[in-house]
């Protein structure tokens, strides 16, 4: 089976800012989880007031913290989300090829790639969109 992955632009497949959780650094963890639930996504992107990406937080980050944090869950929920976020996430730009982006997801074992343009977050490439596009290409 040959998949024409590079017939797609990242911008065609990425979620735009209205379609995934984008939160500020002092959003509390509970609110971040609520946002992730709202969009049915296991990731939230954290930006500053200029729209620059400060970090991301995923289901996996929270899962790993749950076994480390030694304080009440009610306390954990009140933490600023940035305390538990990954502050150097793997990102791509709009010009990244879909093959390259998919390989990054595979190698890094991640499902989401924030898309950056001019230092600002402009979208999120999520594995679902990629898989859906590639499968439909071959039908």
């Amino acid at each position, binding site marked *: 089976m040959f998949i024409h992955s590079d017939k797609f632009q990242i911008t065609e497949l990425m979620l735009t800012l209205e379609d995934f959780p984008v939160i500020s*650094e*002092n959003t*509390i963890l509970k609110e971040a989880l609520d946002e992730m639930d709202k969009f049915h996504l296991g990731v939230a992107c954290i930006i500053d007031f200029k729209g620059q990406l400060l970090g991301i937080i995923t289901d996996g980050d929270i899962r790993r913290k749950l076994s*480390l*944090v*030694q*304080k*009440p869950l*009610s*306390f954990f929920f*009140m933490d*600023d989300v940035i305390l538990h976020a990954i502050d150097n996430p793997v990102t791509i730009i709009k010009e990244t090829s879909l093959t390259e982006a998919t390989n990054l997801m595979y190698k890094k074992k991640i499902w989401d790639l924030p898309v950056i343009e001019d230092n600002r977050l402009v979208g999120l490439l999520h594995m679902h969109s990629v898989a859906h596009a590639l499968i439909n290409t071959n039908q």
Partner: protein
Amino acid sequence: MLNNKMKKLEIGYGKVNKVHIGENLPLAFLGGPCAIESRDHAFKMAELIGEICLKVGISWVYKSCYDKDCRSSPESFHGLGKDDGLTILSDIRTEFKVPVVSDFSDAAWAPATGEVCDMVQVPAYLCRQTSILRAAADTGRVIHLKKGQFMSPWNMKNSVRKIESFGNNQILLADRGTFMGYNSLVNDMTSFPIMQKTGYPVCFDATHSIQLPTSMGNISGGQREFIPFLVRAAVGCGINALFMEVHDNPKKALSDANTVLDIKYLKNILEQAVLMHQTRLEILDKYGEDNVHPQ
């Protein structure tokens, strides 16, 4: 607000001796009789406390309330009322050049309170009431926000965020003890670094912390013998301000008679607190900031 820098507060408008509260600043004191009992008594207490604070070298805010709305019994002294009480506080400001603080229990009282007082206080029982927090924020004054006895220190961030959302970012967070079952309080000293993580300075209310709430049927009891112990512990834990209600004759105090500190002990305790605060700063200077991180 980011958590890495503590807000510095300035309490005082006009011609009063301004009080600064914040990280690495000298310890500040908030004190006075729980309730304004009479004009003469309020003035007498302001004079006595002022003299002691001058000797100790601690800057202070005069605290007294015009309406005690959370008394256990309807028969208990309620206060002189807003108008008379605020007039007395205003005159004390003028006479002694000391900033004043009073609480308010009704949002409608907030504008008048803020008009006179340099600082407005949100009672612990009302610390999460949105209407009260909005009214406090709208005064534009520094807000003394007491942690409810039923609140965790980390949940106080919700009240802080409410106040910030109403446009005020001048907050002093206070701990006055936490309910331990019925009619009893405990003091959790970890609340100070936790509440400081909001980015605001913290205060320890030593006299309410030794209260036994409504333990005597229709009034509260207290174990004031523990005040010095808790003061030393709290200052050692890095509080930025100390709050104590003080009376020249606690047995005759019209409010919180079982918890107010007899003024004869005030100088001794304040001196210890100031020394403890300076020692703590020297310890941090010598050994560095506390840097034991969680996993």
